[in-house]
Every structure is written in structure tokens, then in C-alpha cells.
């Protein structure tokens, strides 16, 4: 049981990071449709960086660099060139899938055995991790997890208690109000997109550096979309995202547990499909939504 909960928090980490990034972006009116691709390139970049230099830190560096690069491209196409966010994001996701596979071949050829890296060690917090039950669950996680659970409340504070957060929220509700106040709407949106790229890259790299210790093409498998969904289900609030990420983390941990313990009653495929079914169920049952009013609408000034 303790193992299960501990793993749940672990699995929730990238979802939380991705969801918080998405919350910021969507609060400013931009949907990061390219998030799945950013997760993927983050996972791949993280692996490549860690494998070639032997340092996990370099893995994170490369992951975030690539994430920001893709986000910049997405930002230019959707904010500057004012193209459709869904269209641009989907194109990028297809593109990234190809590029990543291609360059993996360029760099590593076709290895006989899967390449591995030293998995990222957990960082138990001294003293706190010794507390019975709670200790191993909450305080024996990886550094990335602690970061995630600090960033989310921090994000909440920034969004609702600072002027920068007010600007972001106003951009998503009525960009004209921001424009008229003399702030460049495009710049606000580009900044949140780049931040999302950074955080998405880290979230993706979790899967290769912290969790699996290697890279495979299916490593992300739709989890970028789950982070996207959590933003939605968490009512565009980083604290809500925390709850959402935990729920999905538990779902994933449960699925892994049941698969490894022989499955039994439920077929494997059902367990795999659980998070996705859960997303749909939650999307339907959630009644009140605080959708940012101008979400997805490119801001065009002169007409």
C-alpha cells in the first residue's frame, strides 16, 4: 500500500508539471496543443543528454532546451502568424514524432539491446523521511517531485496574488484590456508558451531519466494529453491540478500494480485504458468550469 501511494506521487510528478504549465498558458488564452510533442522531445532530449554525457543534469538541460525550441516554434506560428492552435499543434506533434525517431537513428543506429542510463536516484529528505507511513510516501521522492509540488502552489500564488498573474489572467479573459493598458499581448502569450515549453520538456524527461532509465518510442503514450486534460479538470487552477495529478498518479500506479501482480480479473488492456476512460468520465461529470473567455482565439488588432 505504501509502495502504491509512493509510486502514485512519483507518477503524478510529470503530469503536475505539465498541467501547471498548461494552466498558465491557457489562462493567457493559449492551448498548448503541442504538449504531447513537447513531452516526447523532452523525454528523448533528456535521454540523449544523460546518455552522451553521463550526467542526468545535462539530460534535463537538453530536454528543456528542446522543449523551449519547440514551444518557440509553436508560439511563432500561433501567436505571430495567428494560425489555428489545433492545426499548428497537431502538425508539430506529427513532426516531432518523426524528427525524434529519425535523429535517434542518426545518433544511435539500431542497437541490439536497448540503451540505458543510470536512473535518477531518489532524494529522501533527512529526518522527515523517517516518519512512519508518511515518510516513505511523501519525503522519499526524487528531486523532481519536490520541485513539482513546490512549483504548483507557487504557480497559484503568482497567478492570483501578483500583478504578473493578473496580466496573464486578463490576457485570457479579454486581451483588449491588456492591450489598452499598454502591455504587448503577443509578448505575454509568447512568454507563457516558452515557460510551458521549458516545463513540458522537464516533464517529458521525467519518463526517460527518472522513471524508465531508457528511451522507447512509445514512452509518452498520451500522457502529455493527460496533463492537458488535468488543466481542464483542475478548473484552470494549479491547486486543482495538484488534485488531478494525484488522481491520475494513483490510477497509473494501480494499473502497474495490477498488471505486475498477474492481472487476474481485469484484462491488461482495460488497465492500460483506465486513465483515458477516467479522463472522459471526469470531463463529463465536472459541471462548473472557469474556462478563460478567450481561450484559443488569436488576438487580432486592426480590422
Amino acid at each position, binding site marked *: 500500500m505504501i509502495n502504491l501511494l509512493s509510486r502514485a506521487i512519483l507518477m503524478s510528478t510529470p503530469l503536475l508539471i505539465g498541467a501547471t504549465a498548461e494552466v498558465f498558458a491557457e489562462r493567457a488564452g493559449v492551448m498548448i496543443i503541442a504538449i504531447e510533442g513537447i513531452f516526447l522531445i523532452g523525454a528523448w532530449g533528456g535521454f540523449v543528454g544523460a546518455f552522451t554525457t553521463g550526467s542526468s543534469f545535462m539530460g534535463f538541460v537538453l530536454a528543456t532546451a528542446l522543449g523551449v525550441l519547440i514551444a518557440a516554434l509553436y508560439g511563432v506560428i500561433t501567436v505571430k502568424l495567428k494560425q489555428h492552435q489545433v492545426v499548428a499543434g497537431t502538425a508539430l506533434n506529427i513532426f516531432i514524432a518523426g524528427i525524434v525517431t529519425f535523429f535517434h537513428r542518426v545518433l544511435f543506429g539500431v542497437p541490439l539491446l536497448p540503451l540505458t542510463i543510470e536512473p535518477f536516484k531518489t532524494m529522501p529528505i533527512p529526518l522527515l523521511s523517517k516518519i512512519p507511513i508518511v515518510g516513505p510516501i511523501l519525503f522519499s521522492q526524487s528531486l523532481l517531485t519536490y520541485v513539482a509540488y513546490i512549483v504548483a502552489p507557487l504557480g497559484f500564488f503568482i497567478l492570483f*496574488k*501578483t*500583478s*504578473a498573474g*493578473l*496580466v496573464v*489572467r*486578463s490576457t485570457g*479573459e*479579454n486581451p*483588449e*484590456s*491588456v*492591450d*489598452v*493598458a*499598454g*502591455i*504587448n499581448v503577443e509578448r505575454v502569450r509568447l512568454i507563457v508558451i516558452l515557460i510551458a515549453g521549458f516545463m513540458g520538456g522537464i516533464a517529458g524527461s521525467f519518463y526517460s531519466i527518472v522513471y524508465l532509465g531508457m528511451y522507447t518510442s512509445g514512452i509518452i503514450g498520451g500522457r502529455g494529453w493527460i496533463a492537458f486534460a488535468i488543466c481542464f479538470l483542475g478548473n484552470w487552477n494549479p491547486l486543482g491540478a495538484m488534485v488531478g495529478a494525484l488522481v491520475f498518479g494513483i490510477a497509473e500506479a494501480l494499473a502497474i500494480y495490477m498488471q505486475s501482480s498477474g492481472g487476474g480479473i481485469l484484462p491488461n488492456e482495460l488497465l492500460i485504458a483506465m486513465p483515458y476512460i477516467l479522463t472522459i468520465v471526469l470531463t463529463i461529470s465536472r459541471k462548473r468550469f472557469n474556462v478563460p*473567455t478567450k481561450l484559443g482565439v488569436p488576438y487580432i*488588432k*486592426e*480590422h
Partner: protein
Amino acid sequence: METPFIELKGITKYFSRVIANKDISLSIGKGEVLALLGENGAGKSTIMKVLYGLYHAEEGDIFINAEKTTISSPKDAINLGIGMIQQHFSLVPRHTVTENIILGNKSGILDKAVLSRQVRNLAETYGFNIDPDSFIMDLSVGLQQKVEILKALYREAELLIMDEPTAVLTPQEADNLMAFIREFVERGNSVVFITHKLKEVMKVADRVIVMRSGRILGNLPKAETTEKGLSALMVGKELPFLENKRRPVSEIGVDIKQLTVLGPQGHVALETVSFSIGKGEIFGIAGVSGNGQQELGEGIGGLLPIKSGDILLDGKSIKDLSVKERIAAGVGYVHADRLTAGLVLEMSLSENMFLKNSFDPAWAKNIFINRQKLNGYADKAIEDYSIKASGNNELVKGLSGGNQQKVVVAREVDVGRKVIIFDQPTRGLDLGAIDYVHKTILAERDKGKCVLLISTELSEIFELSDRIGVLYNGRLLRIINREDADIETIGMLMAGYEPEQGKTHEP
């Protein structure tokens, strides 16, 4: 000769289909109220938006205190002390008054209590009664406008540009605003007042500039003008007098009984409203926007459910009919929001004419649209209404506002065999188009149809209506025959004050 505060020289601005400003030169002095007068489409808003940095002119220069300046964004304008209150407010409805005012003005961590107090003090300085922690979406339009003004004052604006500010106010609120303007100007500041209403100009302006078709036609101190002279400059030609022969009405066509309608947020938008419209009668609804007009139109049109009461058409109740069924029953509806509710901009003129007929088998050959019939119909509308378009397949987004409205009117007049609802039918239109729409409304009435005219333009209500009802806070306060109506009484009713009985209606 004192150097003027602001000078514009030779400004020219194009949009993709129209020349908005041609070689505009004007100056604004300190401590003066300058009125920019002109009909809709004259270019008045455009030139001020250039000054405010929202638009970039193709040619021309701006001088502030005799120094050539480049204003490339509202931020620059605000830093130079220029504030603009636009027709459509740029407020965030879900945020509070304080949040809206400090947006972009404060950095770092926000101390809500301190900031709210600052805003409260500022409001009190100018006699504005606003709670800084209330949400914009809960405020009346008049109060929202005050928040917009506060935004500019918070930034220490020395010039306030106001674009058609009284369009959303009751006559009394408008007087209030004029008083504020006078006080503001007495402190040495300037105001540019953009309007198409002559009476306001005569009341508040020191100087008047008349614009037409993107050019300046007159620039005079108010003392040297007359209403007639200004009107002639504004329009440039004599408009034939609108003949309105009223006939006695015998049959009732539409009967509204104790209608109560809830608005989208669940509040009561219309409360026990009762009136009837005779066949061949124009019933005008006067009132400041936001008092239930839209809900009245939408309630009759079928878009909002009825909480209680009934709507009878030719004696039969239609309150349970869907929108589709009401269209088939002969209810036409020219909505106030022509662009969102009445037209599909990316479709052709023909296809827009089809909007209300798509379920009617008379227009289809099996499942296929009868294109020939539709195009013929569109061509006839173009001819009958003098719509300026290159053909029935031109996309509606390429038409001018006036021509777009003509498309809507042409269609709704046809759909509305029995009843036609007109809500703000001439808002934003130039005089030629306004005249056309008015003529159409009268013609439809003369055909024996029931016409409901909802408008915030009192002159329009007075010109066309046979009977006038005033909506205030969702209640129909009084119904007056046109012959017995006067502007003062109507104005008071619009503000909720019942003259004879001496009662004020609590909100």
C-alpha cells in the same frame, strides 16, 4: 497664440476596403472641450484611435506641445497623458473594479486592501459611487463606463477622448457625465467628445469639428455655429422628410401577457410585461440598454425560455414553440447584434439569405438547396434594397455595415410575415442606410404586420412608433400614445422615475 496641447497634421489612414481618414489636421487646446461631430462611418473614431496609438496612420504626424511625437501603442499615449473611453469597454467582466484599474499599473505582489482603498479614494474625488471590490459583470453599463474613466484618471490623463459616451446612458446619467466633463476641464484638462448627436454638441462643446467620409468639413468655435448649419455640414445633402401616415388599428396581432423571462445568468430580466401590438402598428420600446430589451426580443423570438406568462400570435399561444417553429409561424427578428446573431460573415450574400429558410422544403429539391431560387431571391433583395455588393456570391464580410444590415433586414422582413422585431436596427449605420431602414419599417407596418421596434435612440422611437412603452429594470412602466408622448416624460421613465405618480422604482 498659445501652442495647442495636441496637434494632428495630415493624417491619412486606410483599411483594407475603405479610406477611413484623408488628410486630417486638427488641434486640441488645454482646458477645452472639442466635439468631433459626424454621422456613423465618418471617421471620427478612427482619427482618435490613431492619436491613442491603437491604429497606425499611413501618412501624417502628431505633435504634443509642439514636439513631434510617435505614438505606436496605447502605452505611449497613456504616458503622454492621453486616455480614451471607447464605445466597447475593454474591461474584464470576471475581475473586480480594482483589478481592472490596476492592470498594467502595478508590479509585484498585490495588496488587495491597499489598492482597493486607493481606488475608492480616487472614485470619491470625482463623485463616483463605485465599490472597488465589485465585479465588472455585476455593474450597470453606466457604472462600467465610470470604471473606464477611472482607469484613465488613475493614469493621470490630461486628455480624455470619449467615443459616443452617452449611447449607453439615460438622459439623466448623460447630464451627470456632462457635469463631470465640465469639472474635469475646469482643472485645466481637455476632452474630445465624439458623437453624432447634435444636441450634445450644443450642450457641452467649446469647439466643433465636423467630419464626413473621412474628411474634415468644418472646424469652428461653438459660439459661431447653429444646429441647422452643423446638420447641413454633417450630412451634405437634404434628406427628404420621412412621411409617416398613421392609420387606426383594428385587430390585435401579438399579445404579450404577463411575460416573465429569466436572463442567461438566472436573474429576472423581464417581469410580468404586458402589451399588445395591433396589425399595422409599430410598438416602440424605449429604454436604456440592459433593462430587458434583448430578453424581450429573444423571448418573443424563442431563444429564451419563458418563466411565466404567454405570447399570443393571432390568438394562439406560441410560447412553447421552438425557434424553428416560430420562424415558420412568421416571426422575423432583426437582432441588435447583427454580426453575431444575424449573419455568417464568411458566407455569401445568397447563403445568408438562406439562414432562416434552411428547414423550409419550399427552398429545397429533396436534400439539395435550390440554388437557382436562392440566387434569384438574393438578386431581388440586392435590387429592392439597393445593396452595394458585387453579386449574390460576394462574402458578406466584405460589405459595409449599412449594406450588411440591409441584408438582414431584407431577409427578416420576408421571414416575418406576421411579426417583425427590430432591435437597434440602425446602430452604427450612416444616414443613408438609416433612412432606408426606417422606410422599410414603415412600409412593413403599412402592409399590416405587427412591428416591435426596440431602440435606445429616442429620436428613432419618436419618429416611427405609433405607441411607446418604456422598459426599466425588466418592467414595462407605461404605454403612451405617440401623440401624447414627450421626451422629458420618457426620459424620466427610462431612469425609473414615474412623473405623475411621483414614484421611483427601486432597482
